[in-house]
């Protein structure tokens, strides 16, 4: 029941927000998102740390097709629901200094998207999962395309067509699997887990599902929509896309790809690892050469996601656990970084490193927060990035030493582009743009403090979250290695 509440509350709130005129809409949306977060926290407290799917809610949907409205949460779902509900209020809060036109629609769309995201993370029926997968896409497309930058129309269009193209393949994959289930057919996830498909079938299904997830993440070479879309979207959309939405792809791999077609995965995991590792090096190297801050973080995101994908496809416990914890860390860090970029852009009207510099001289608070988030991103020990990347790399090393070594360059390259960015933006001489740069306002601090708390919390006591997902990961690995 609590899952249904988590799912429908944002939708209901979104409809209500639609009717609120003027800038009050953002306050209402923020309030709704905070309530959602409290519900999620309550669910976390009620959660029993075992491999069972909890908080289940089941309702037949299309009975003669065996399609059910089956939602629930196990540890993995819960962690991602936590990430979503934690980030959305902050993302809404971060938008307070902006005054977007038609604010009621803007914030309603954010809440609708939240519903789609929660649905993706809690659905235990294939068609329901697909349903929410698309439902999450439509609002973000409109947010990016209506409130985005100058070249928004063609760029977001490309993003939209690209992702929908992938997800249509997923749909066919699901329909095929559906017809392999015994009896009158069902799209229940457990029925999919119990299928015994031959190797050729698994190989086919692997690609049908993988393309959808790979485009969403995005894994090299399906990433071409990503840097442009991140750059042109309004900051809040970029945060939603990078902080939460790309986790849909990773979550999809963990829940809907690995356990359903384990033999298909074992046929192709080498290729996926190679692609992911190319993505790590490629994204990082391009990030080093970027001058636009948003683009830089966008490319760095390709690198980080590459590592997560590589870790997960090793099918080791370290890899999976690392991938899941890294989803959380990456969400926190990337939202923080995009927010700081937004602060800088609002004050100086530029995101070009060449036109910035010397900001530290007037902004002690901003500099500290920026540095902490940055160190979290480059995986310094005691920060959140370290836990995830350590586990991921250890997983990749268990798979293959050479691949581990190349993937490990992410730490060095990451430090290079991140510190280069920090140096260019924050140190050096002040110039016309950055003279009189104001330090953080109370509101901005209010957004950054929870993020920084999470950076240290995950870094110092990762067990809070690792223990949450451990039984579920063990259960999944059991299904995969069956």
């Amino acid at each position, binding site marked *: 029941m609590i899952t249904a509440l988590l799912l429908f509350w944002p939708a209901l709130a979104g409809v209500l927000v639609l009717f609120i005129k003027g800038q009050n809409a953002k306050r209402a949306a923020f309030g709704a998102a905070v309530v959602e977060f409290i519900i999620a926290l309550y669910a976390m407290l009620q959660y029993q740390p075992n491999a069972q799917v909890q908080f289940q809610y089941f309702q037949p*949907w*299309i*009975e*003669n*097709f065996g399609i059910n409205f089956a939602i629930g949460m196990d540890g993995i779902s819960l962690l991602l629901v936590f990430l979503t509900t934690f980030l959305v209020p902050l993302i809404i809060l971060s938008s307070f200094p902006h005054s977007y036109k038609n604010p009621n629609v803007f914030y309603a769309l954010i809440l609708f998207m939240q519903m789609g995201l929660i649905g993706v993370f809690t659905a235990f029926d294939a*068609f329901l999962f*697909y*349903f*929410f997968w*698309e*439902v999450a896409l*439509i609002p973000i497309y*409109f947010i990016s*395309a*209506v409130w985005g930058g100058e070249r*928004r*129309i063609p760029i977001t*269009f490309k993003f*939209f*067509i690209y992702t*929908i*193209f992938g997800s*249509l*393949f997923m*749909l*066919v994959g699901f*329909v*095929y699997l*559906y*017809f392999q289930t015994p009896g009158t057919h069902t799209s229940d996830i457990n029925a999919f887990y119990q299928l015994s498909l031959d190797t050729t079938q698994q190989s086919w299904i692997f690609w049908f599902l993988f393309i959808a997830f790979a485009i969403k993440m995005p894994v090299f070479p399906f990433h071409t929509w990503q840097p442009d879309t991140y750059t042109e979207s309004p900051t809040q959309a970029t945060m939603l896309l990078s902080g939460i939405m790309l986790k849909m792809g990773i979550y999809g791999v963990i829940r809907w790809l690995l356990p359903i077609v384990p033999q298909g995965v074992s046929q192709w995991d080498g290729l996926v690892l190679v692609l992911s590792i190319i993505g790590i090096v490629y994204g990082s190297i391009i990030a080093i050469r970027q001058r636009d801050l948003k683009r830089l973080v966008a490319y760095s995101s390709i690198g980080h996601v590459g590592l997560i994908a590589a870790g997960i496809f090793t099918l080791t416990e370290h890899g999976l656990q690392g991938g899941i914890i890294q989803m959380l860390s990456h969400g926190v860090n990337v939202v923080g970084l995009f927010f700081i970029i937004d602060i800088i852009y609002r004050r100086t009207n530029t995101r070009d490193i060449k036109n910035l510099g010397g900001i530290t001289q007037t902004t002690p608070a901003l500099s500290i927060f920026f540095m902490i988030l940055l160190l979290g991103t480059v995986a310094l020990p005691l920060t959140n990035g370290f836990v995830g990347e350590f586990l991921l790399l250890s997983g990749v090393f268990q798979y293959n030493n050479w691949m581990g070594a190349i993937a490990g360059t992410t730490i060095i390259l990451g430090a290079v582009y991140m510190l280069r960015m920090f140096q260019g933006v924050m140190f050096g001489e002040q110039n016309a743009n950055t003279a009189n740069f104001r330090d953080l306002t109370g509101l901005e601090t209010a957004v950054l403090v929870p993020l920084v708390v999470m950076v240290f919390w995950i870094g110092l006591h990762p067990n809070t979250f690792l223990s949450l997902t451990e039984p579920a990961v063990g259960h999944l690995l059991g299904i995969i290695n069956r």
Partner: protein
Amino acid sequence: MNSIILLTSFGILNLFIGFSKSKKIIMPLVLLFLAIVFVVNLTGWNDTQTYFERMLTIDNFAIAFTAVVVLTTILVLPFSQSYIDQQNDSLAEYYSLLLFSLVGAIMMVAYENLLMLFVGIEILSISMYILAGSDKKNLKSNEAGLKYFLMGSFATGILLFGIVLIYGATGTFYISEISSAATAQSNNELTSPLLGMGLLFTLIGISFKVSAAPFHFWTPDVYEGTPTFFMAFMSTVVKAAGFAGFYKLMSVSFAGAQNIWFPTLIAMAVVTLAIGNIGAVAQNSFKRMMAYSSISHAGYLMIALLSFNDRSENAIFFYSLAYSVSTVAALGILKLVADQRDDVSYNAFNGLGRTNPLLAAVMTISMCSLAGIPLTGGFFGKLFIFSAALEQELLWLIIVAILMAAVGFYYYFRVIIAMYMREPSGDRVPVGSVATFALIFMTVLTFVLGIAPGLLSNIL
């Protein structure tokens, strides 16, 4: 049968009402007539009746599709408001022709005898020829009427020729009796070339009516010239009735001879999908785009027809309904917008999100439904069709359809972009209250089909 009698008498009655001075009364009356027909039609549910020496059978299949075409007509009618406002002299005749053509549509979904199919198609088509050319002073409408008439009558001729050849081979017009003759030649050999020829010609004739490639050439030109109001009727009612008739013919008569016509229809489905979708991409006129889109939807419906199992009937029904509702909404809005801005291209919709939020929202939902996005009826329409085909292991066909569906997103979303992301190209578009009500009803229906498809997904 009652619906046929009612429609005919209402049509004649309506012609007399047309003599009255007040044109305002006609539309409410016709809506009332159609509502009566809709209800009367549904009362026959689960009560199969045959008429005229078994030439017509009103079973659940016929009733379901009759309901679709009558409902579509009810939804189309409110968009004729501008004809009433302009005191159009021929208004009553237009409405009567629509009512008469519905008689043809009902015969097309209820026939048991190929003659009835032919007569139904003719009744429907002749009304359509006139309505396509009804904008007398517009050269394009004249062109559309003439083109449709010349090519249509040629296609009907071929259809008739096909029916006669089938008769020659089997000695009967009854579709159930043809089936035994056809089954005899199922082992991939045509024992009677006559029957093969007959089947081929019949296929060509019907394919023309539902605008399946390669017999689609008339569609964009005719639709473009036809007044938008009648195009909304043509592209939905004719297609729904045509596919129901098509399916009935193939499933009753030629099920046994499946491997003879199967490769032909697969090729046609692929070509239809490709031409419809890729053709639509190249259009700058929204109206022409919708014409190509109707071709592409014929392609999806052909997939349902090809999968040929117990799912296909329901899939065709559900898809026709979802497609008709969304198409009527989209073309209705086009009519309203084009009346004011005098433009049928994508540019006509620029900034509609700001001037007419309701129209833009309804349009967005219709486009999402036509493209097949979840929460709308179009999604489940596609899902049911893909399910039907995948159960038949038509994997390659599905992959083609998926690629084409992705292409579809491109052209359907262009209008959404125009509405929400460009500056307005005109003032607020006036919308009548009946039309507003119809638009809201269609939106609700699209959502109902998209959220609770179980209500209608398994009724046949």
